[in-house]
């Protein structure tokens, strides 16, 4: 099933949610008419705010204004800085006395911008539950993870969502998903200060605890390796793209509100911080996050593996013309060398006639973007006689016309 279908479902249900907010008590309001609902014991586990929000809508859909009100009260009690929660609660309070037809029905003038932000936040949060992939589906981007990579993060920029996957025995399991904020101007970061979030395959490179950071970063930050080799080939600039928390005064930020960072709530940041492994955990960002069947993913994986295998063969055979053909004309190394120069430097014992090349511990990721890019990581072992050489390589394969070409390559 294509992810696109999901989108449509998401939108439809998101809309429904907003309309639910319009449930009104028209037709002879009666305060007393609603049967009193016994306050439920507060959940022991701190429920996540989106679950609480959908609970509220569920009560509203059943016309239980009182129950909805109690849940909204509980929501802002549990998350006192959750502004969207306050907005919904404000609407619920109004519903006791009048019809409410839209989110933020009686917001005072002058706050239109903030209201629009909260409505956008509501819309994407409402999509979260219906958009969650079923267990049968896997994220297309995670073609193959290395065994020791326990987790992967996928940021769906289109839906302001971060998916945390666990990799266990070659099985992927969705652990959790979070609402995220991204750049004010969206994605496709290309230069410093463009207020966009980069798209691509990155890694968490560090953990910066919140106490060492200004308030704006909340409970901490997880920096990314933007710009990576592929970004450099494409001339992208900028730095300091982090996943980080929110300042104390707000639980969450609007969907499009950062200078390019990916912002999550402090609770979620803590969860992520516990899970990620520095330098190991990938974070894939894009607007084409797809969840596909295993067979689709296996096909993609076969392709990715065959690319690397073709390349390996040509290295082993010392077929320089064929090997050179795997590289794109736009290829640039980290030292800004062209492919020929780069390849010359990669040769091990150039005079040897017979060498053996093996590839092990590979990982393959497919960029969740329009541009088709496969990132392969593997350990290359060369044996010449009794000499051995091993190096960990990272390659960015991009589809150029019908051909897949290496656009960037580096030794890790």
């Amino acid at each position: 099933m294509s992810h696109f279908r999901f989108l449509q479902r998401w939108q439809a249900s998101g809309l429904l949610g907003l309309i639910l907010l319009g449930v009104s008590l028209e037709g002879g309001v009666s305060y007393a008419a609603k049967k009193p609902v016994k306050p439920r014991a507060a959940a022991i586990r701190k429920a996540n705010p989106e679950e609480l929000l959908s609970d509220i809508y569920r009560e509203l859909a059943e016309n239980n204004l009182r129950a909805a009100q109690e849940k909204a009260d509980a929501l802002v009690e549990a998350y006192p800085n959750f502004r969207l929660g306050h907005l919904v609660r404000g609407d619920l309070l109004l519903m006791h006395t009048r019809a409410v037809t839209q989110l933020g029905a009686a917001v005072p003038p002058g706050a239109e911008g903030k209201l629009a932000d909260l409505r956008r936040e509501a819309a994407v949060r409402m999509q979260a539950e219906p958009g969650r992939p079923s267990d049968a589906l896997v994220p297309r981007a995670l073609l193959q993870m290395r065994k020791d990579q326990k987790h992967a993060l996928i940021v769906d920029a289109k839906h302001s969502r971060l998916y945390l996957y666990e990799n266990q025995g070659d099985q992927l399991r969705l652990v959790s998903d979070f609402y995220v904020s991204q750049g004010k101007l969206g994605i496709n970061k290309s230069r410093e200060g463009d207020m966009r979030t980069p798209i691509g395959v990155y890694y968490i490179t560090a953990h910066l605890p919140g106490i060492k950071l200004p308030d704006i970063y909340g409970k901490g930050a997880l920096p990314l390796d933007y710009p990576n080799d592929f970004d450099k080939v494409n001339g992208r600039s900028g730095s300091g793209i982090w996943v980080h928390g929110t300042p104390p005064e707000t639980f969450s930020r609007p969907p499009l509100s950062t200078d390019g960072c990916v912002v999550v709530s402090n609770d979620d940041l803590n969860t992520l911080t516990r899970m990620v492994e520095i330098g190991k955990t990938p974070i894939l960002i894009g607007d084409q996050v797809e969840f596909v069947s295993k067979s689709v993913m296996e096909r993609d994986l076969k392709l990715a593996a065959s690319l690397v295998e073709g390349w390996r063969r040509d290295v082993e055979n010392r077929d320089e013309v064929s090997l050179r053909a795997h590289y794109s004309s736009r290829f640039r190394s980290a030292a800004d060398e062209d492919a020929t120069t780069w390849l010359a430097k990669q040769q091990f014992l150039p005079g040897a006639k017979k060498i053996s090349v093996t590839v092990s511990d590979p990982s393959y990721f497919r960029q969740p973007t329009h541009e088709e890019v496969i990132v392969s990581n593997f350990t290359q072992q060369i044996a010449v006689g009794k000499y051995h050489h091993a190096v960990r390589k990272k390659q960015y394969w991009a589809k150029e016309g019908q051909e897949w070409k290496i656009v960037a390559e580096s030794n890790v």
Partner: protein
Amino acid sequence: MRRALGSAGFIAMLLAQPAWADDIADVSKLLKAGKVAEALSKTNEFLARHPADAQMRFMKGVILTEQNKSDEAIAVFTKLTEDYKDLPEPYNNLAVLYAASGQYDKARVALEKAIRTNPSYMTAYENLGDVYGKMASQAYDKALALGANSAPAKSKLTLLRTFSSSTGSKVTVPEMNVAAAPAPAPSPVATARPGAPAPVALISPLPSPDVAKSQPPQRIPALSVTPPAATPKVAAAPTPVAAPAPVVAKPAPALVPAPVLAAAKPAPAPAPLVIAKAEPAKPVPTPVPAPAPVAKPEPAKPVVAAAPAKPEPAKVEPKPAPKPEPAKPVKDTSENEVVLAQVHGWAKAWASQNVDGYLGYYSNEFEPPKGLSRKAWSDERRARIEGKGHIRVEVSNPEVSVSGNTAKVTFHQTYVSDRLTAKSRKTLVLVKNGGKWQIKQESSGS
């Protein structure tokens, strides 16, 4: 009915420790004169002798509120809610105090209790609507991080100065608290009319228990500062107009003892004259249900008074009978249209928030509810109406009956403001003054 009895029960309870009308009246008068401290000491003096007296304790709460001694006032009203769990008024006033200090959650709880004790308690509904609005705006402030620059708007909640609430009305959600006509309990404040011994039977704050029980829906005369000579009023009172509390037609028998009516009749000529003097002179609410239509037509014009006084009574003669139906649809329908046009004009002025125009639709004889003075009532209406972002008022299915110079219009009213949507059944009683129909009574009920 149950509710009415409930309030009757309360009255009986109050009677257990009767506040002397004079004492309460004195306190009221002091309060009105702005002598708050004196009023308080008098209240304390009285309470020293009768510590359990509910009316005086309530009065004390009101005085403390006036003095901005919120904590003490809250203590007084809280104690009252404990001692008299069935009384909505102390809850309401507690809510007003809580709301004034921004404790909207407590205010909400108190108002919900007020409504639970009396599900048709309109002031509490209106106040609850305001509290919800306030809470909503606080929530919005938090949602939009407005915090700093949004000082809480002054609370518009209505503090009750008397016990006489809209008890017994059957409206689910009336859009205004004016609706009280059907069955207000007697108001202690009525005694504000100092030294009005004659009308005691009619307006005493403490009618005999029998009265209270048998006539729960008695309409309480307004609080009046300068009561006109009481006696003539009483004579004039027997107008059937007041009685027809449309809603409660059944339980609300003749408002005033028939005998009085009889007394009035014998002297038809002088009566209008007296009234002519008393009435128009005071825009102040006539505490006593307006004079009969007989007296009504031209009391304002002394000129006419002499001559028409005679023919008029003759015509109205059949009317005094309670209210069933104005003897016969006397007038032709053209008059109905005039009346209806006036009602539509009233609704329009209200909806367009033209308060002066709106108030202009009310006759000088209009009796504000809850024992309010005309001025207090006008101010309250002004605050309510002007404070709204928008108001829509719809009049539908009107039924008009005209009898002489009195008309009754019953219709479905739909009221929508930015805080409240309410549908109710409304009855307006209009009287013709100098050729112009004006509202003399307003009541809600189904």
